[in-house]
């Protein structure tokens, strides 16, 4: 707790200093870098301190700091339990990496833009996210949440001269405020029922099932907007490409995870939900997962593609969360425990590998000055660092063995399969549907990253043969190497992180779990690494044989064989759209394609063009009609807003009179 407070105060003081010195970019940058490193260091210490304790730290047993009367209607009441600590861990790791990278990334803008303000806002975002994660009072939570949203808006609109960026920021602001509305209603309802705005009092209250399900729907809407569940996701694929990459990494790795944290916190507080809440979450998760990856397949803009993959991974996390809730509703504690563990671990892993992917994509964008994959190709040779790190990120996100994605996807599968084994028919139907969805997600994600990595880094460059791309320096490589190392470490030695996730999962279920179940989860993972070791031995043997043979029969280098066609240009390579076309064609009935072309009508062909893009169906068929409807209604009610101050004062007077009458009555 102490180290977290130190970390918070370092961030507060240094952000003020950065603002003070924002004219001198050198000083502000140095303050930023060092305060970031120390603050994240202290933050990590506090997170580890809680996670490494032998006894589990339940929400009721956390070390608290409570200052009365500091916030209107609430109090400054914070505390770290194991759940908060787990999220703090991933949050500080990623914000450290993204911050250092951002420092390196934004150097080229020094003098052109006010980078100092950006850095100060970055610190502000870190402070409020920390507060959201440790708040134990609903009012404090909502205030921090609101500042987080607004600080996020300013960070996203860094390139504010562009119309598209401003629009993306605007949509982000509106979408998240719709979420805040739901959250406020939810917390007020809970507070009114429990008689206190403090989380521990709320948690001590038993909620009737009807109220619990209503609260869950509000929580799903409020936190779901932030987390980016389909169809509440539309801000996400717009805001991610608009922001500078390190902010995208932070948004995708942490900010949307705060939505997941919120859902988990609600599960901690309310505990008993009716069965259908878990089922609904599972279904929405499956839709988000499959939908997210299908939309990602249709994207050619690298950051947009990664943004849709965040939606997919939120789906995977929520699959674990959903099966956990279903298991709890069936009183199958093992299913619930594995489900929550899987959700937590995938949250961590996604933060790490998605951060890595965004940052390495940033290195590509920085050197090519374009995010369009169709213009790239062959970058593996010119940007080897970005290439190798992107490859590690891709292998992790596809969930391949040896990397961290495999561990958490294995756990999600394990939770769902335990659900198939231990639940009744109704439960089996939904868990097996989720298994199907998760397998499909895995396959499609592999396809999508084969496309992304293949088109960007492999083959030949599609625009020019002459390339003068320059790679970043150690300030940019360092953070990425850190993240890549974590991907490997969790993939090869899963035990420690899984134990961390156990602590968090116990904080969610609220009961200590026997050692037997923990070993039943960990031991297979350790045996799995043994299989991988066997694979590694075979690999080494194969390498050795090949080495021997190539010594005897030397290798020749030549052009790629193109089936006897001599004049091959780089434009003839398979493009991202053509690579993804077969699979999108199979799913065309549930996707919405927009194809524009000039039909050839004369005998002699003229210049013509064809463009096709994948549109977001939930935006075009669900949200747009809905908002047009709201717009129509508000236009009819426009006369209320006359614009005269006097009339507004009159309204207030009327309201007061009505309140007075109501009270006297």
């Amino acid at each position, binding site marked *: 707790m102490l180290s977290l407070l130190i970390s918070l105060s370092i961030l507060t003081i240094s952000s003020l200093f950065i603002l003070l010195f924002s004219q001198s970019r050198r000083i502000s940058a140095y303050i930023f870098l060092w305060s970031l490193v120390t603050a994240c260091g202290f933050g990590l210490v506090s997170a580890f301190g809680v996670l490494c304790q032998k006894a589990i730290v339940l929400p009721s047993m956390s070390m608290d700091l409570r200052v009365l009367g500091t916030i209107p209607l609430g109090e400054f009441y914070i505390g770290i339990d194991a759940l908060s600590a787990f999220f703090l861990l991933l949050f500080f790791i990623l914000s450290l990496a993204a911050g250092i990278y951002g420092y390196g990334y934004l150097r080229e803008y020094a003098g052109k833009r006010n980078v100092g303000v950006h850095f100060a806002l970055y610190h502000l975002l870190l402070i409020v996210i920390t507060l959201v994660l440790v708040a134990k009072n609903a009012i404090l939570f909502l205030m921090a949440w609101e500042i987080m949203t607004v600080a996020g808006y300013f960070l996203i609109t860094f390139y504010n001269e562009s119309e598209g960026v401003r629009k993306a920021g605007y949509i982000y602001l509106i979408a998240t405020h719709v979420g805040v509305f739901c959250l406020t209603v939810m917390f007020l309802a809970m507070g009114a029922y429990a008689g206190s705005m403090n989380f521990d009092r709320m948690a001590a209250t038993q909620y009737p099932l009807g109220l619990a399900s209503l609260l869950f729907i509000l929580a799903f809407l409020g936190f779901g907007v932030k987390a980016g569940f389909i169809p509440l996701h539309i801000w996400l694929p717009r805001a991610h490409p608009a922001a500078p990459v390190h902010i995208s990494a932070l948004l995708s790795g942490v900010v949307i995870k705060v939505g997941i944290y919120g859902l988990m916190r609600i599960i901690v507080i309310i505990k008993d939900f009716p069965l259908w809440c878990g089922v609904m979450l599972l279904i929405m998760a499956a839709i988000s997962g499959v939908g997210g990856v299908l939309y990602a397949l249709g994207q050619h803009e690298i950051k947009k593609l990664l943004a849709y993959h965040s939606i997919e991974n939120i789906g995977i996390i929520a699959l674990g969360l959903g099966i956990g809730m279903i298991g709890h509703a069936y009183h199958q504690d093992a299913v619930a425990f594995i489900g929550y563990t899987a959700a937590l671990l995938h949250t961590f892993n996604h933060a790490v590998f998605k951060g890595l992917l965004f940052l390495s994509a940033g290195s590509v964008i920085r050197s090519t000055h374009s995010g369009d994959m169709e213009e790239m190709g062959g970058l593996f040779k010119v940007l080897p660092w970005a290439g190798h790190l992107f490859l590690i990120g891709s292998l992790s996100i596809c969930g391949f063995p040896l990397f961290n994605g495999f561990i958490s996807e294995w756990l999600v599968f394990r939770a769902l399969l335990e659900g198939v084994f231990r639940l009744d028919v109704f439960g089996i139907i939904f868990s097996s549907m989720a298994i199907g969805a998760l397998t499909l997600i895995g*396959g499609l994600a592999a396809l999508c990253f084969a496309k992304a990595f293949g088109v960007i880094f492999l083959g030949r460059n599609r625009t020019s043969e002459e390339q003068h791309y320059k790679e970043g320096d150690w300030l940019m490589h360092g953070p990425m190497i850190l993240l890549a190392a974590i991907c490997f470490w969790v993939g090869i030695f899963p035990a420690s992180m899984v134990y961390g996730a156990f602590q968090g999962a116990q904080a969610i279920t609220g009961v200590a779990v026997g050692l037997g179940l923990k070993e039943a989860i960990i031991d297979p993972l350790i045996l799995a690494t043994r299989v991988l070791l066997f*694979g590694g031995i075979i690999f080494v043997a194969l390498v050795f044989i090949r080495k021997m*043979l190539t010594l005897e029969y030397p290798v020749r280098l030549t052009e790629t064989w193109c089936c006897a066609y001599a004049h091959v240009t780089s434009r003839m390579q398979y493009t991202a759209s053509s*690579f*993804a076309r077969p699979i999108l064609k199979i799913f065309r009935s549930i996707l919405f394609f927009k194809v524009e072309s000039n039909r050839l009508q004369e005998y002699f062909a003229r210049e013509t063009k064809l463009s096709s893009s994948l549109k977001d169906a939930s935006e075009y068929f669900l949200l747009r009609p809905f908002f047009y409807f709201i717009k129509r209604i508000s236009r009819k009610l426009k006369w209320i807003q006359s614009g005269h101050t006097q009339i507004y004062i009159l309204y207030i007077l009327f309201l007061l009179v009505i309140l007075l009458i109501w009270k006297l009555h």
Partner: protein
Amino acid sequence: MNVILLLHITVLFVFPPFLLGFIGKTKAFFAGRIGPPLLQPYFDLYKLMRKASVYSLTANWIFKAAPMVSTAAILAAGILMPIASLKPPVQFWGDIILFVYLFAFARFVIVLAALDTGSSFEGMGASREATFGCLSEITLFLNLTILALLSRSLSLSGIFPGGLSSSWSLVGPVLILVVVSLFLILLVENSRIPIDDPDTHLELTMIHEVMVLDHSGVDLAYIFYGKAVKLFIFGSMVVSLIFTFKTHNLWIDTFFFILEMIGLAVLIGIVESTMARLRLNKVPYLLFSALMFSIIGFIIILARTI
């Protein structure tokens, strides 16, 4: 223990190319030819090993590493698979997930290697392989879930040698559906004829072969060998589902297992000789029918448990 381990590894490593020999022989029989000798796949591997590799100037290390990584991943999946009544060297609760992911990994690296050459033909093959692969993966996993539910085990070694022996009398129809579905998946995953023709000559119609156009020498040998092992593993899955009876004598069981595998190879050969290759846009329908088979099987099981 050591004998079992050794026998398992030996059968897994040595036997697979033999299957290709039997398939070739069957096809030759239907064509009225004598055909290449049964050991021809071994001769081919030997020949390829003694040829120098040619690499594209465009390619990176991914192109060179991919055949080795993919073959190693397939063999690693192989040691999870029980053969005859031989317990696999490693088994654990939930190894079916690793099993499926290892195959996906093996496919992924080959797809990357194909894209690494920058050839449009190989990009085309990679795109097709990845598409069909991700559809067959879901069917494979669903079938394994059904089998896990029937045998109450999440481990391949719990499912295959004896876990299902009582299921045939109880839920025979379900197992027939699963066997048919798995056989279709076997054809898809190993690029056999109704889906892909391993001996075709036009690159535009190929799926798997076109991905490895640029591989040569020892790399190509690795890829061929890996494919043979993959066919062997999928085949042993189908065979152990059909023949659940075991004598519990190590050598007799292994002998019968090899006979059964040869029978399967002959069956594949018959399918290949009597059918024409499907048009590419019909392949998804075949995959969906395989998926439907396993979903229907699942529904039957659920109906029984009510």
